[in-house]
């Protein structure tokens, strides 16, 4: 508890928490669109492709100026996204392969440049590779200003083009028929996603960025069917995960913040997947279980009713009728008794009044008619005379 309060007093923890929270809000808001546009891996590709840009920016600037590095990374990330679009438009290569190709080649180039920097012995080069896993602990107030700047642009653009983005996410064909510039709008949306990735580079790093975009959005999707609420929730979940990751990593030494943020958002997602009202999986499972049980009991009651009417109802006859072991039949009769549908009678069982009524009701509902009147002889069907 003390630790949570330290967010307000401890300078480092406060910066890290605010930075992670900002990342959560920005990534969450843009992730909602990425999720709807089925671009779950876009964040991953953009982040990997940012590596060469980061290193080039560093080589040009000669030192680690965070904003310059982030802009450099943003440029190559954006370039990769544009190349993916160009490849998809001009060849029959599937989208996922195009994304994979850009991810691999850009990251490879980034690694090459990184070793370049390391071997040329630039001053101040240590820690450049921290962008790969993120180094949230190094976030300072100046970084926060950058985050607010980048994120502010992204959020304002989303607010301005909310209606258009919504339309191209749900129904691009309709948007095109209305005369909206769909391609330009999706380029804009992708570019804004690049901004979110730039914020994420310093916090969770290149590799884990994919989850920071998609997981909050997927979690938010569980709780609502409305896009505006989904974006807000997604931002909220992202922020909560960011702060929790930051706080947990402060509890011990050697606990990296990035992975903890990702694991926090994964936990939030898991809980949402399981327990969200309406879309929670647990409710699904429970419904399936209840349906199965209901169906089984109905079949059992109908069988018991049949035996009750035509033979005597006992564990032996039930076992014979249902071709199951005696012990199972005995247990099932006990179950019927506990439901108040059957009672012991002489050596075996008999249906109670409630049981008979229930069975009758079921037979009516399932159109199971008494045997005698079930099959009419063919000849007795009245023929229409022409």
């Amino acid at each position: 508890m003390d630790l949570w309060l330290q967010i307000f007093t401890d300078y480092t923890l406060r910066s890290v928490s605010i930075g992670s929270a900002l990342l959560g809000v920005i990534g969450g808001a843009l992730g909602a669109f990425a999720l709807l546009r089925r671009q779950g891996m876009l964040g991953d590709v953009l982040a990997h492709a940012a590596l060469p840009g980061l290193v080039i920016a560093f080589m040009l600037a000669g030192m680690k100026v965070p904003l310059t590095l982030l802009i450099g990374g943003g440029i190559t990330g954006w370039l990769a996204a544009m190349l993916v679009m160009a490849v998809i438009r001009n060849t029959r290569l599937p989208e996922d392969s195009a994304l994979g190709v850009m991810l691999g080649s850009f990251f490879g180039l980034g690694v090459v440049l990184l070793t370049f920097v390391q071997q040329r012995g630039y001053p101040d080069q240590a820690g450049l590779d921290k962008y790969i896993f993120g180094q949230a602990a190094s976030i300072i107030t100046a970084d926060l200003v950058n985050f607010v700047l980048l994120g502010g642009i992204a959020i304002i653009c989303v607010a301005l083009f909310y209606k258009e983005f919504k339309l191209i996410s749900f129904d691009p064909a309709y948007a095109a028929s209305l005369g909206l510039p769909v391609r330009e709008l999706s380029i804009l949306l992708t570019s804004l996603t690049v901004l979110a990735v730039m914020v994420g580079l310093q916090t969770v790093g290149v590799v884990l960025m994919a989850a920071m975009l998609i997981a909050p959005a997927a979690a938010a999707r569980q709780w609502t069917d409305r896009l505006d609420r989904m974006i807000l929730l997604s931002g909220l979940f992202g922020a909560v995960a960011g702060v929790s990751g930051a706080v947990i990593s402060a509890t011990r030494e050697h606990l990296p913040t990035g992975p903890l943020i990702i694991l926090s958002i994964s936990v939030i997602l898991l809980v949402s997947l399981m327990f969200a009202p309406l879309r929670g999986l647990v409710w699904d499972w429970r419904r399936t279980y209840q349906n199965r049980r209901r169906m089984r009991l109905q079949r059992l009651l109908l069988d018991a009713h049949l035996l009750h009417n035509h033979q005597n109802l006992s564990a032996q006859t039930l076992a014979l009728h249902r071709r199951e072991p005696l012990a199972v039949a005995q247990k099932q009769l006990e179950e019927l008794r506990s439901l108040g549908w059957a009672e012991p009678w002489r050596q075996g069982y008999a249906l109670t009044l409630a049981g008979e009524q229930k069975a009758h009701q079921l037979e009516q509902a399932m159109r199971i008619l008494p045997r005698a009147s079930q099959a009419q002889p063919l000849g007795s069907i009245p023929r229409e005379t022409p």
Partner: protein
Amino acid sequence: MSADLVIVLTAILVSTAAALVGVFMVLRRMALMADAISHAVLPGIVLAFWLTSGDRASLPALLGAASAGLVTVTLVEWLTRTGRVKNDAAMGIVFPALFGLGVLAISLFYRDVHLDLDAVLYGEIAFAPFNLMELWGQQIPESWVVMGSLTALNLLFITLFYKELKLSTFDPGLAAALGFVPGVLHYALMALVSLTSVGAFQSVGAILIVAFLIIPPATAYLLTQRLPLMIVLAVGVGVVSSLAGYALAIWLDASIAGMMAAVAGVCFALAFFFSPLEGLLTTHLRRERQRTEFAARLLIAHLAHHDRPVSEQEVLEEFGWNPQFLRRAREKALRAGWLEASSQGLRPTNSGFAFSQSPRPE
């Protein structure tokens, strides 16, 4: 044994093994699954490292780590089947969570051990010559044994199940209807991808392996529409980028694996522009040629209706073409022998007349 030879042969084995299974990943639209698997084997590697207390290359460790890849596939498919998230999002959720666990474990327990994060990321193929093992009384680089057997395994799998793989890749419905079991084949393929990722992990790292799995097959995809040729080309591109990447890396003194991935990217770019099938430049040139040819035929058909030579000026006015375009069409027609130019103007030759009247020229 020279260090160069060890490294180059290791790289060739890595790229061959990866390209063999990568072809099917690309064709099945699971390229990003390859990415997810290769990331997610990290916790498996850490776990194996912990279980075998440091002996990274032993067979159980390899198998254990590869099963982490299968866990990823299973989790992603389970998430997709629940209907709550789409396939792409499921991948984007599962692998960072697993990778995050791996990173966390490394930074908690293995800070001072050989298993550092740099090695995880980029691998260090330059260390290949130093890891030797005893085999039949010979000192053989460990990477040769590991990657050699993986290459053989992948090759065997593809040769034995070629027909089944082909069918289930291009028409899974038919494969299922005919009584093949696409599910088993699918998981076998995923298991091989995981194994290859783990095996290549020491050489090229957990992230760059995706470049070897996807880029050569994607390049081959642009070059051909036949599966056998695509497999051969993918392996070829992989080997070429390994060799060229190694040479460049030595020359520029940079990361070998990174350079190989970058060169593979360059190969893809070349195919993108110059592929005879659908390269950007080849398509452009083909369209230009078709345009000129069409214009030439149009010109001849038009001239055939005149009973006198027509001056270029007149054609320009009637067609509204720009002079340059007319010149190109005229050149084309002259070269084909459809047209003769005299001082009075342009006039079709006999063959020009012939095809302008027949419904199907030539």
